[in-house]
């Protein structure tokens, strides 16, 4: 699942370790989420949402970025410009 965690962290000048401490997870977990190697649990996603003060869907990619739009589920406005996600 794609996400904007790294961007949001950089905007707030937070290190991975500092963010990990705020979320009560390991630094490896934060890193794994940032590089798309691990999808966070719903609980952790809500914690991340609270820390950055943004809704979950503003941080994590929805259906429009997962390739499901290729099946015509979500391409009414051509948001992806026909590009592969």
């Amino acid at each position, binding site marked *: 699942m794609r996400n904007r965690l790294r961007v949001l962290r950089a905007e707030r000048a937070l*290190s*991975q*370790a500092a963010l*990990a401490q705020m979320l*009560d*997870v*390991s*630094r*490896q*977990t934060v*890193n*794994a989420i*940032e*590089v798309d*190697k*691990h999808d*966070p*649990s719903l609980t*952790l996603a809500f914690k991340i949402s609270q820390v950055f003060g943004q809704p979950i869907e503003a941080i994590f990619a929805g259906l429009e970025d997962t390739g499901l739009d290729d099946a015509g589920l979500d391409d009414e406005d051509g948001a992806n410009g026909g590009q592969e996600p």
Partner: protein
Amino acid sequence: MTDCDAEGGQAPHWFSPAAWQAGMRPQDLRNARVVNMWCCAWALAFVGATFLISRLQPTPIMGAVIIAVPLVIGVCTIRSYLRFLHQADELLRKVHLQGLGVGSGAAMAVGSTFLMAAPMGASALWGLTFALAALALSFSFSVLRAARRLNA
């Protein structure tokens, strides 16, 4: 710039204990140490009980008592490992559960192979031994691979 550079430090080699412990929550480290201590106690009790039974030729009651010690320690080890898993960071839990899955599969594959080979003279004891070894090695390899992949 790598993630570790961004954190202002040089990453230790993935195989070193420092790499495994860096970034882990203190709670996870503490629970992992408790599990390790129980594992060591279990191994020592197993070796001790095996030695005593083979050397002393104890009475059935005494033998049962000797066997019960590693059994009780084993149960305590499992309880401490469950506690570790319940309280672990979600990525750490995922890595360990994946390792347990791989290990169980490897043990079943090796064990069933020895069962099939039993009519050809394969020893059941060796089958059990190899199945346990396959479980331990597969679990360790799986966790090591995950540590190498995730310790960026």
